[in-house]
């Protein structure tokens, strides 16, 4: 520690970055870079977690504020298993899911603009007993208009969340990708801002999941920071496709 400049204590660059991230002082692109690294670099993650633990006692100074009473209901609606939709969907034949998966992958690689949704019932046990209905995964591949696969999405009904995984790197710094669903020619409804720069899961409000069904169109537009100011897509549409049940 000798010979360090008085203005800046000696730290490794990684430790300084971990500190800045834990403190919350980084800008958006830097945060994204850190979060990408956290997924693959356990040593760096340990540095970040050490700083988070050091700073956590500061939170004791923050007065608790009771959230509104109805907020739990909103959370419960998103975390409870939704009513089964399997009855409305054609039961997949045995092995159909994997065939379908191969199909949509193939379509994506072939440059199709279609977003294909595979409805996978895991070993259907019969048409009744909805309480014991197996979870259905919805898988979609979204491609750009030039056919470049952009990202895949997996909807887990038990969690009420959609996991997004980018197929290609994209640079949308300073802009906000927003996911839309268009049903029967109605105006697009926002499914919220999404992160297409790294694999992540995106919680979609439960009431909007009803639009995620065969025949609907999914689209991603690039909006100003914070999302579309009008409630409708205003920026370039970078990916689109029709949902098709297989």
């Amino acid at each position, binding site marked *: 520690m000798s010979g360090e400049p008085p203005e*800046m204590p000696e730290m490794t660059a990684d430790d300084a970055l971990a500190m800045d991230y834990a403190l919350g*002082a980084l800008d958006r692109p830097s945060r994204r870079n850190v979060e990408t690294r956290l997924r693959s670099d356990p040593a760096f993650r340990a540095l970040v977690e050490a700083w988070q*633990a050091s700073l956590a006692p500061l939170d004791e100074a923050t007065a*608790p504020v009771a959230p509104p009473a109805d907020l739990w209901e909103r959370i419960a609606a998103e975390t409870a298993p939704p009513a089964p939709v399997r009855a409305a969907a054609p039961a997949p034949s045995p092995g159909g899911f994997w065939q379908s998966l191969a199909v949509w992958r193939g379509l994506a690689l072939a440059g199709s603009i279609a977003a294909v949704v595979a409805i996978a019932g895991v070993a259907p046990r019969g048409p009744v007993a909805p309480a014991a209905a197996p979870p259905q995964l919805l898988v979609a591949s979204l491609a750009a208009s030039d056919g470049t696969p952009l990202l895949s999405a997996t909807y887990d009904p038990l969690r009420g969340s959609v996991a997004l995984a980018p197929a290609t790197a994209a640079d949308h710094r300073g802009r906000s990708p927003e996911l839309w669903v268009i049903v029967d020619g109605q105006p697009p409804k926002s499914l919220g801002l999404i992160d297409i720069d790294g694999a992540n899961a995106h919680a979609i409000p439960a009431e909007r999941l009803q639009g995620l069904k065969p025949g609907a169109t999914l689209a991603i537009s690039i909006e100003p920071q914070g999302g579309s100011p009008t409630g409708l897509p205003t920026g370039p549409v970078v990916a689109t496709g029709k949902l098709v049940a297989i």
Partner: protein
Amino acid sequence: MTAGAAPASTLAALLARAAAGDQAAFRDFYDRTSAKLFGIILRILVERGEAEDVLQEVYVTIWRKAAEFDPARASPITWGATIARNRAIDRLRARAVRPTSPVEAAYDLADDSPSAEAVLVAAGEAARVNAVLATLEPAHAAAIRACYFEGLTYEALSQRDNVPVGTLKSWVRRGLVKLRQQLEAAA
């Protein structure tokens, strides 16, 4: 009631049950932690409706990631608070501009904090952290608080307080290195 009323072991057990799909346990976890997390989010986002949306996202995330919680790496409340802070900061960064308060307000906020903290002086770690912060130059401690509690970037704080970014970084870094040294010495 503070988070101190909910032992880490209790919260960890509730998270484990939530990971197994037990929504009643998850409700219990929410009841014990949501006021603390909402307080953290509100300091960063200020606007109440937006903070409520983020709190909702945070608990959906906690439910989804409950199985990933590792008590060896963080306490349950620190884990949840980290998710809350990160979600709130992400939302803040997604906004074009944040309503900024003048530098005087920042110092007022810093001055307010010790009294709020005094209520919780029984919490040993918090007391130690604040004791260390109290030994720093007031401007240095204020910079740390502005970043941590308000989610400001160095750049935003630089513009708000008219202090060069490099100077702010050195203030914060020196303060936090000192903080960690003191905490390690006390451990």
